[in-house]
């Protein structure tokens, strides 16, 4: 029997376990959409292609499956770019399918032609331009394999229209992948494991610094066991939140620019830093030369190029965090660190996270209540800015994949479509996008998507009528010259929600917060909660860019 390229493509996606595609149609995709019309795959029609990419990303982050998104050639494909870059920076497995003009027209500046392979080259793990219908099944198989193995990332498949319409008889779907040039390391080198075990046993002030790699490798259980054995305290990057229980007595919260004081003191005074699935990003290290100055550094990472890129590593262990922690757990000897853990307890008592009560509704208070009302049983996405940092500081993430946020790229507009993707993948979970009034407006159009597919996502706008994080920097470092950061002109978010067919609730006082949250959770509809919060609230502690982690600005005093 004869099959078209479009049929083979969709069949191959289904064979790879894809159950959902987030996308948007266009001219060169017509043959593929014709197949989708009655294919056994869930298609979510977004309202902007950027939304499709972030939704696929949120779908992936919340499940560890490969997210799939699709857009047409030219503008459709370029609209995906921010979403692809977001996934790339945070190592999120995604397969991106773009339509392309027919092969005979490539390079001719044809209508809606864009060299999307070229445009996305630096922000994909790999990409393919399909030139032969016989390659489709193999390429799809490889794309999924590459996306989810090793250090995960987005893989783009560009499919010209004439390849979608070309036919072939009896296409073969390969059972396995064989890429001679791609063999990611999994197990840690036994010698390195031995060195790590001995460094751990003799350490006096060790700290675990865990990152998003805990999620990618599914290593949360192993990490917990490692802490059970060794009693070593844990601090986490933004993307690592949820990788270790936020309520655990040995958890120090996030480190870095907006980390807790005790996490930053701990890492700065440590004699051993055990980095697991984290990459010493500048938002984490502050001034690199003064990062953990006295520490021996063990770095467990799947990506050899992450090792000693920013910070010199003494004991690198390349491989999958889950396997390596298992290897270490088998041999680990608990160090004697009572003095150290007491010291950390003291720092926790002396420098707790906190904010000034009184006055207008405080954004931190809203986050605390979201945590209380959900009991940590929710998927929280964030936008970017103060909202993101407060969410990271004041919500206690208990489970892996319960916190979805754009860390590496810091993409405003990520949170809402990501929440949609997460809700599609987890229909029974409560999902909240913790948003800023600026960020939410970047993909607000996806309200229609949420309505169309009955996705009861909740958006909690911490509405400070400002581009708050930028305003904060202007206040602190630019003499309060508030250059274009006021969002005083903004829509009535309650009415916007209602116009789309969602619910909108405005909240201005503390008493209204919990009832509003409860009613949002109970509602079967998407709900936009418009929390009018203190406009000039700042995120503290704060390590100014380029300063050492011990130089934290504090707002309480």
């Amino acid at each position, binding site marked *: 029997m004869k099959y078209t390229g479009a049929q083979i493509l969709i069949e191959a996606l289904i064979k790879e376990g894809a159950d959902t595609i987030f996308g948007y149609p266009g001219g060169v995709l017509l043959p593929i959409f014709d197949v989708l019309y009655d294919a056994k795959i869930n298609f979510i029609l977004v309202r902007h292609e950027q939304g499709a990419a972030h939704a696929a990303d949120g779908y992936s982050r919340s499940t560890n499956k490969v997210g799939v998104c699709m857009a047409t050639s030219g503008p459709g494909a370029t609209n995906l770019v921010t979403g692809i870059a977001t996934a790339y920076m945070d190592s999120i497995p995604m397969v991106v399918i773009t339509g392309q003009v027919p092969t005979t027209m490539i390079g001719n500046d044809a209508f809606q032609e864009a060299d999307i*392979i*070229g445009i996305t*080259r*630096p922000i994909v*793990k*790999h*990409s393919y*331009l399909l*030139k032969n219908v016989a390659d489709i099944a193999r390429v799809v198989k490889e794309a999924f394999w*590459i996306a989810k193995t090793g*250090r995960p990332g987005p893989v783009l498949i560009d499919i010209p229209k004439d390849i979608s319409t070309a036919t072939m008889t009896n296409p073969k779907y390969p059972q396995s992948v064989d*890429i*001679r*040039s*791609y063999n990611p390391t999994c197990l840690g080198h036994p010698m390195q494991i031995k060195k790590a075990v001995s460094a751990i046993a003799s350490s006096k002030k060790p700290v675990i610094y865990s990152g998003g790699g805990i999620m990618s490798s599914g290593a949360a259980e192993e990490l917990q066991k490692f802490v059970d054995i060794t009693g070593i305290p844990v601090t986490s990057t933004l993307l690592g939140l949820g990788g270790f229980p936020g309520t655990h007595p040995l958890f120090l919260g996030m480190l870095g620019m907006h980390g807790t004081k005790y996490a930053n003191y701990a890492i700065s005074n440590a004699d051993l830093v055990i980095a697991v699935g984290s990459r010493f990003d500048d938002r984490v290290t502050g001034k690199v030369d003064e990062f953990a100055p006295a520490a021996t550094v063990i770095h467990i990472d799947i*990506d*050899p*190029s992450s*090792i*000693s*890129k920013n910070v010199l590593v003494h004991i690198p262990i390349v491989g999958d965090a889950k396997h390596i922690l298992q290897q270490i757990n088998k041999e680990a000897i608990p160090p004697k660190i009572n003095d150290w853990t007491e010291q950390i307890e003291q720092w926790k008592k002396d420098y707790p996270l906190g904010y000034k009560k009184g006055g207008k509704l405080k954004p931190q208070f809203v986050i605390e209540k979201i945590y209380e009302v959900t009991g940590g049983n929710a998927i929280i996405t964030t936008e970017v800015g103060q909202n993101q940092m407060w969410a990271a500081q004041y919500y206690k993430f208990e489970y892996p994949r319960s916190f979805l946020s754009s860390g590496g790229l810091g993409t405003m507009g990520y949170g809402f479509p990501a929440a949609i993707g997460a809700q599609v993948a987890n229909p029974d979970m409560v999902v909240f996008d913790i948003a800023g009034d600026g960020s939410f407006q970047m993909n607000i159009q996806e309200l229609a998507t949420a309505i169309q597919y009955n996705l009861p996502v909740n958006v909690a706008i911490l509405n400070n009528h400002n581009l708050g994080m930028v305003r904060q920097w202007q206040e602190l470092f630019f003499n309060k010259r508030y250059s274009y950061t006021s969002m005083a002109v903004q829509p009535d978010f309650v009415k916007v929600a209602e116009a789309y067919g969602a619910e909108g609730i405005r909240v201005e006082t503390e008493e209204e917060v919990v009832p509003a949250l409860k009613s949002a959770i109970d509602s079967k509809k998407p709900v936009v909660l418009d929390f009018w919060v203190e406009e000039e609230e700042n995120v503290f502690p704060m390590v100014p860019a380029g300063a050492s982690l011990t130089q934290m600005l504090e707002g309480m005093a």
Partner: protein
Amino acid sequence: MRHTISVLVENRFGVLARVAGLFSGRGYNIDSLCVGETDDPTISRMTIVTNGDNRIIEQIEKQLNKLIDVIKVMDVTKEDHVERELVLIKVGADEAQRARVLEIVEIFRGKIIDVSPKTMTVEITGDEGKINGITEMLKPFGIKELVRTGKVAVVRGEK
């Protein structure tokens, strides 16, 4: 320091762009880059001459290895190896100067591959020292054009 990095890649559309893009995107220098098929037509070899301190070179190797189409990366600078480059040099030389040019070319074991009333074109193969040497010697005649292939390198012995 200068390093010569030898990279085996899949002989496929777009690979050169990925490698070149990696260097430009991350701010690494390329002094020369030379690509050609190997004995296996599905594999090409790129010889890249670059410079940087040890940390940069280590990153370059790791980043190259990360590209899916890259099969093998080797910093041949660290090994006992032979390097060669082919250069074509067109120098100004009239009848009176021809003999002197010829003499220099012979010393360096080059070849004259073209002659015109006012120019001679020299073909020379060698390592950097030799190429620099002959270039210096020919400069006084006036170099009209100099075309280099970029370096290729191979490790000595069985490795």
